[in-house]
């Protein structure tokens, strides 16, 4: 009961921090922190499932989040007129050929005897396959990218409601996780960490360079929303009237209203996922997972298929990250591949899980909110601190200028410090595993 009080208290503190932001800074900033906090909490939930409950070290969170973002574009953007006719068929054909080449290589690897002949056959197949793939793909890509490159120049999406993109984002991430897990967990030794790190970079590289897919670094903007537009609300007399009744001006009211609608959607997803995660972990499946984690040898001796369980939990955790990624891109209404940085999307999520408490879903959620709050607020706090430090210095003194300019970089330093302090003095996190 005591622990319960403490945990509720911890969540209350985060709530108060967000409320304080509302009172001291602006309510828009506060609700934005809340929204991104909800998304961060979902990401942390996914990583916690993998690390906390199965000891799997996923440092490619960024890749799964980005795949979710890609799903948003592919599902909800309107199809580019004429793009599919111009080059879409070739692109699809090329992708099928590419996949067929790899499948054939895998089949050869399985079917032929080990030796130089097999190696040679595979190399020839892969090299020839690669050139055929490029020969089919390149003209298609050129044709697609030639269509009004300033506005589109890509295949576009299916034009479906954006909410459908969230589960699809999860599916994309799950698919990638299946591929990675199959390969990395299937090796004689486990190489998951480096594999996830690498695949995440590859996913980002693809999204930055394959303009036909998601416009690359030109970004996709104006992704449809699941909520009304502010401008429409401000033009709606009924809304303006109700806002005035609350003593708010229409602009403020509309921006807040939209953000709160998002918050409602995100909260629904978080609660749903949290409930499912808790249920899954209390089930025999979850108990087996923890049994494997605590004593793999014994679990294996009891006939448990450890690799299969690990693969399952890795896919599930990654899918959750994918859903969070799709939600984030929906909130931003744009996909900017160059904004995906490992520090922000992989390692920060790890800080959330460790600080919150690995192995405890509520801990991960708390960590998500708290660390996101810090991530946002350390910058103004750092500036404040630097103002105080440099108060005694004359204006224009080089050190003062430098300190004030560099205050923005306090953020990374603080995240590292928080992580190390928690690991040192409270290694099981704020809400430890029971």
């Amino acid at each position: 009961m005591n622990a319960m009080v403490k945990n509720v208290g911890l969540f209350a503190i985060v709530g108060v921090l967000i409320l304080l932001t509302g009172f001291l800074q602006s309510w828009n900033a506060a609700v934005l922190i809340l929204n991104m906090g909800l998304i961060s909490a979902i990401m942390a939930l996914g990583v916690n499932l993998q690390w906390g409950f199965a000891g799997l070290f996923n440092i490619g969170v960024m890749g799964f989040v980005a795949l979710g973002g890609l799903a948003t574009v592919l599902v909800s953007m309107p199809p580019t007129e004429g793009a599919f006719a111009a080059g879409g068929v070739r692109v699809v054909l090329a992708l099928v050929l590419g996949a067929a080449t790899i499948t054939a290589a895998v089949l050869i690897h399985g079917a032929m005897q080990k030796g130089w002949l097999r190696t040679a056959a595979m190399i020839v197949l892969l090299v020839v396959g690669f050139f055929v793939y490029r020969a089919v793909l390149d003209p298609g890509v050129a044709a697609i990218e030639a269509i009004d490159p300033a506005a589109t120049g890509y295949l576009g999406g299916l034009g479906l409601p954006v909410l459908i993109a969230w589960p699809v984002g999860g599916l994309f991430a799950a698919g990638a996780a299946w591929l990675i897990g199959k390969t990395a967990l299937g090796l004689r030794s486990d190489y998951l960490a480096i594999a996830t790190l690498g695949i995440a970079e590859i996913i980002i590289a693809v999204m930055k360079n394959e303009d036909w897919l998601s416009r690359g670094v030109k970004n996709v903007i104006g992704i449809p929303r699941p909520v009304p537009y502010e401008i429409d609300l401000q033009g709606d007399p009924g809304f303006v009237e109700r806002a005035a009744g609350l003593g708010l001006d229409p602009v403020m009211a509309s921006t807040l209203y939209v953000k709160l609608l998002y918050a409602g959607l995100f909260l629904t997803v978080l609660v749903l996922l949290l409930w499912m995660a808790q249920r899954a972990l209390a089930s025999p499946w979850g108990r087996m997972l923890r049994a494997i984690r605590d004593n793999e040898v014994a679990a294996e001796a009891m006939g448990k298929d450890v690799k299969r369980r690990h693969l399952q939990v890795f896919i599930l955790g990654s899918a959750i990250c994918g859903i969070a990624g799709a939600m984030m891109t929906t909130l931003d209404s744009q996909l900017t591949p160059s904004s995906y940085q490992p520090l922000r999307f992989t390692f920060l999520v790890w800080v959330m899980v460790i600080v919150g408490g690995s192995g405890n879903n509520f801990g991960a959620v708390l960590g998500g909110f708290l660390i996101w709050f810090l991530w946002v607020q350390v910058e103004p706090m750092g500036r404040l601190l630097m103002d105080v430090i440099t108060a005694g210095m004359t204006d224009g003194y080089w050190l003062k200028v430098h300190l004030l300019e560099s205050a923005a970089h306090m953020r990374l330093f603080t995240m590292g410090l928080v992580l190390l302090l928690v690991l040192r003095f409270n290694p099981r996190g704020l809400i430890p595993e029971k």
Partner: protein
Amino acid sequence: MSSDPYGDRGNKDVSIANPRGTGSAASMQGGGTASLAPGGPFLIGESMTGGYGKGPDILHDCTISVDKGEIAVIVGPNGAGKSTAMKAVFGMLDLRAGHVRLNGEDITALSPQDRVAKGMGFVPQTNNIFASMTVQENLEMGAFIRTDDYSGTMEQIYDLFPILRDKRYQAAGELSGGQRQQVAVGRALMTQPKVLMLDEPTAGVSPIVMDELFDRIIDVARTGIPILMVEQNARQALEIADKGYVLVQGANAYSGTGKDLLADEDVRKSFLGG
């Protein structure tokens, strides 16, 4: 595992964590000081009671000793605490009662590392060589704490184990099981120990190699170093032993000279298969 905040949650990822060569939980370093305690045998673990860490007691009032010029052998059934008794003498166990005395000093409080400096040579049962290093480097590492010229000692060891001289520039991990054991014993001898302790030196080697290893051990004993040895192959071990201890469930069951024990009806029936 959830109780251990510094545990690995079952993570086996070799791309981030190196599982090889990590130390056991037993602390090899630090510890107390030795005090004078003259009299008694050259090395004795007297009335030892204790276990690993906070775990249950494995040894119960167990006494093991060896004197100058002797080979003492600890035998007994599986799980009798043979290796544990030897580790207790070497300081890798938490003793709750009893003493260990070496050469007129009480060394009960010393760490294993300090006991090596006091003149104990210990050859663990497994992982007893530096597999990636050459035979010669293994011997050099054995002499790590020596500040004097140890080339003479190395020559003596090459004379004792001629095969090692031939393989001196080969990685020790590439040698056969019997040769690895010779490297391990040679490494321990490099400190010029006052007493040599061997934990099942013949484990996992073929009978022919086993005979050769026993011959080598006798050769070592002839150089004047007392030897304390744990052995699975009780009959052969007792044949070369001056003194034998039969342990059962962490306590002394029988002790006497090797010959006496071989002749003892009870011992033969229970432990030597008739």
